[in-house]
């Protein structure tokens, strides 16, 4: 970057406390015109809090913000918008049933006769900005009908329509394919060339090194350092971010698969809207192996798991657990046949948060002896088992009568794990088993999954994190648009998988 570029944003000595936690502790941050300044840190490092302060959603307890040299009070998003700040949220703030143009002009609508919405003018404006910045979208398309990459462009256009000079991109590549991410980087460079300044939030080291001019690292609410991107290596950044050397590989012996315990044949599944999301998938998962299923979110993973666990009826095809056909069985029938299921969302699905730990552990088995007999429940037996598993799985934060909702995410996941594994299942489906967990809990879950593999269970691991797939799997399958498009050995590279995940490997027989 040119050294002379003026500073457009200065945040100095920002401190923000929430009940008991200091989310931002005396953080100073600045942004120059035309640069990409990356904000790097783990989950919970304070990146989102800092940016929500900049966007007027939170108010700092201490510190001040200057934009273009002038001190500002950002009391609300509209104040931030007026000051020229635009934000592309990680979860898009778009209304699915409305059109691209309606979403972009919302709050700043063009009118005719001062009274009516001028939708023609809105479409025209969108077309004009999208031409100027090279972000092609159809203004009349509904958000729900366009791709995630296009939705992200709409978010960027929304900020540009409000004349944003400072753009905050909150983990923008989390939902994108590697190819779409590449396109995004092109867009970002185009924007900086036109004088826009970008704050790029991420926890992915490689992309930060690729796109950023400067990098600020946060750890546990504190500013660690701000360094130029030139010369920074992934290893040095990782050390800054985590505070110690990180080993992401899991120690495990080579797998020794035997009988097929989980078998899927030519499965077809429709989603709630009647769209075919799983289009003829066949799988064989054998005892003693972990099979990783990689893919971009929304390519049929959810429907596949639902159909394999009895939560959704398959249109055709068959599912067998340990040789037993469970295609038309209920969820309970699947558990009976020897399937364990760690669901992708433990709070929505995996746990009844208001129930105690002991009650949650009994979720599948409360109808059977010894938990109950002839419909009569024995709470003492539930508590007994709860206490045993709490010890065995090192669940911290309460006893068997503690509400599951009061536990931390990692301990909640341990409860789910304890319940599923203690039933001694033949096969185990683990969907995003470490989502949102801290490093310690992730290690626990990973180690436990490998142990269960060595016990001779067949494990299907479905994850959006390629790192997780690569470090745990003995075989890797890639799902794309409801089909398995390739099988890879565990030493495949992220790039190889990335190509397959975007449909690039289709038609070829991958090794």
């Amino acid at each position, binding site marked *: 970057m040119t050294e002379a570029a003026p500073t457009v944003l200065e945040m100095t000595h920002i401190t923000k406390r929430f009940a008991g936690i200091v989310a931002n502790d005396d953080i100073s941050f600045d942004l120059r015109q035309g640069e990409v300044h990356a904000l790097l840190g783990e989950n919970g490092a304070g990146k989102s809090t800092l940016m*929500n302060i900049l*966007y007027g*959603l*939170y108010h700092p307890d201490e510190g001040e913000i200057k934009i273009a040299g002038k001190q500002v009070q950002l009391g*609300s*998003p*509209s104040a931030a*918008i007026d000051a020229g700040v635009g*934000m592309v*949220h990680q979860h898009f*703030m*778009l*209304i*699915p*049933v*409305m059109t691209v143009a*309606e*979403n972009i002009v*919302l*709050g*700043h*609508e063009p*009118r005719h006769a001062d*009274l*009516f*919405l001028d939708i023609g003018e809105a479409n025209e404006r969108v077309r004009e900005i999208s031409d100027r910045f090279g972000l092609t979208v159809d203004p009349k398309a509904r958000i729900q009908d366009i791709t995630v990459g296009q939705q992200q462009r709409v978010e960027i256009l*929304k900020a540009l329509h*409000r004349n944003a000079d400072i753009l905050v991109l909150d983990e923008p590549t989390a939902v994108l394919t590697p190819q779409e991410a590449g396109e995004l980087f092109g867009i970002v460079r185009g924007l900086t060339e036109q004088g826009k300044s970008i704050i790029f939030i991420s926890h992915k080291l490689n992309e930060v090194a690729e796109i950023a001019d400067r990098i600020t690292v946060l750890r546990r609410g504190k500013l660690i350092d701000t360094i130029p991107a030139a010369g920074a290596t992934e290893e040095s950044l990782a050390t800054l971010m985590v505070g110690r050397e990180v080993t992401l590989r899991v120690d495990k012996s080579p797998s020794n698969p035997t009988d097929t315990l989980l078998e899927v044949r030519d499965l077809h599944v*429709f*989603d*709630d*809207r*009647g769209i075919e999301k799983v289009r003829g998938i066949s799988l064989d998962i054998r005892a003693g192996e972990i099979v990783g299923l990689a893919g971009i979110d929304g390519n049929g993973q*959810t429907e596949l798991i*639902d159909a394999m666990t009895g*939560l*959704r*009826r398959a*249109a055709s095809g068959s599912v067998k657990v340990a040789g037993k056909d469970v295609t038309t069985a209920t969820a309970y029938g699947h558990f009976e046949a020897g399937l364990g299921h760690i669901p*992708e*969302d433990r709070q*929505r*699905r995996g746990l009844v948060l208001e129930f105690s730990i002991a009650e949650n552990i009994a979720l599948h088995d409360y109808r059977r002896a010894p938990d109950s007999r002839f419909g009569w429940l024995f709470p003492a037996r539930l508590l007994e088992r709860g206490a045993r598993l709490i010890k065995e799985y090192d669940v911290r934060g309460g006893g068997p009568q503690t509400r599951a909702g009061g536990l931390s995410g990692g301990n909640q996941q341990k409860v789910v794990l304890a319940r599923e594994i203690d039933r001694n299942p033949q096969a185990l489906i683990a969907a995003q088993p470490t989502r949102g967990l801290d490093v310690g809990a992730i290690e626990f879950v990973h180690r436990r999954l490998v142990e269960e593999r060595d016990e001779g269970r067949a494990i299907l691991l479905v994850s959006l994190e390629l790192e997780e797939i690569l470090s745990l799997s003995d075989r890797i399958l890639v799902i794309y648009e409801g089909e398995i498009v390739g099988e890879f050995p565990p030493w495949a590279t992220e790039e190889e998988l990335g190509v397959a995940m975007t449909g690039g490997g289709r038609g070829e027989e991958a090794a």
Partner: protein
Amino acid sequence: MTSTALPIAARAPRGLRSVAWIGIALGLVGLWIALPPISVRSWVWSFVLCLIAIMLGIGVLIRGERRFGSFAIASGVLGFGVGYLATLSGLGKLETVVVWSALIASTLRFATPLIFAAIGGVFSERSGVTNIGLEGMMLIGAFFGILGADKLGTWWLGLLTAIVAGGLTALLHAVLSIQLRADQIIGGTAINFLALGLTGYLYVDIYGAQGTPNDIPGIPSVHIGFLDRFSFLDVVLGDLNLMIWVALILIPLSWIFLFKTPLGLRIRAVGEHPRAADTVGLSVYRIRYSAVVLSGMLAACGGAYLSIGFLDSFNENMTAGRGFIALAAVIFGNWRPFGAAAACVLFGFSSALAQRLPEYSGSAAVLFQALPYVLTLIAVAGVVGRSIPPAAVGRPYRKS
């Protein structure tokens, strides 16, 4: 990502809808032939036609086209019920009951309070606030309308009193559900109880045993002189209450407001994705407050029409579940003004029939008072799952 709904194998094919239309038509024919001027004197014909209608409806419904399937079933039930009763009563009586022009006028009268409340419900629900308190707001409107007209001496001051009182009641609901983030169903139930208690209390306190006086200035009717020449139109439209015309005008107006103005866009945005609206600088609270208060004012208009436009008196709990029927109409009409109004007209027609029948036939006709409620039940059962509510309806919004 996850699914609670029962799996639907595939989208309903187009052809089902045509089959449902045939069912609807058959049901209506079954109704039509039993009534003057045709007046088929055996119930068998209606029975056969309507049975086919119901069977077609069920067939279509289980194949996934719920909305139109339920229309066909409703049409069959209505057709046979009316047809059977018609063949039981004498021809002379029948001709007094079924004067089509009068029946249509009566349908409009019964539909009007529902239309006001339903349009109010559309606004509230579109902004993301469930308004089960419509019933109570109508009742408040009915009482304060008559109170205002009585004490202040003119019908329009009465109407104004009703609107203000309805707006205040809705404001309470808004505070509960928006500010205090109370459960909106519980909050609405509280509003309904409070309205029942308050209007009952004040009614007894102010009017005592005598009831409301007879000389209360009512909302006038609009007499359209030149229609005298066309006898049919004259009976239908010639002498309708002012509020009926207001309701009819309100339907397109509210459609334009909701779908063609910036404010309408904002209301819908807040109901679909409040955080998205918040992040572009809109005030979710302010928009929701306005929409809920507006819904209360409209519901109160409906109530005031009942008391000072239609019946010229007040009774305790006189709204008799109309607020809930209006709410069902909102769902049935897919959260759109025209759809909701059409559903109101359907319910209004069944009320008009039910109202006219018992005067001329035997005790069984009392059962027809239940017709609007039965139809509502069928409608709600048949339509849900196929119509898509605003995504954030019923969820309190918490500013972060």
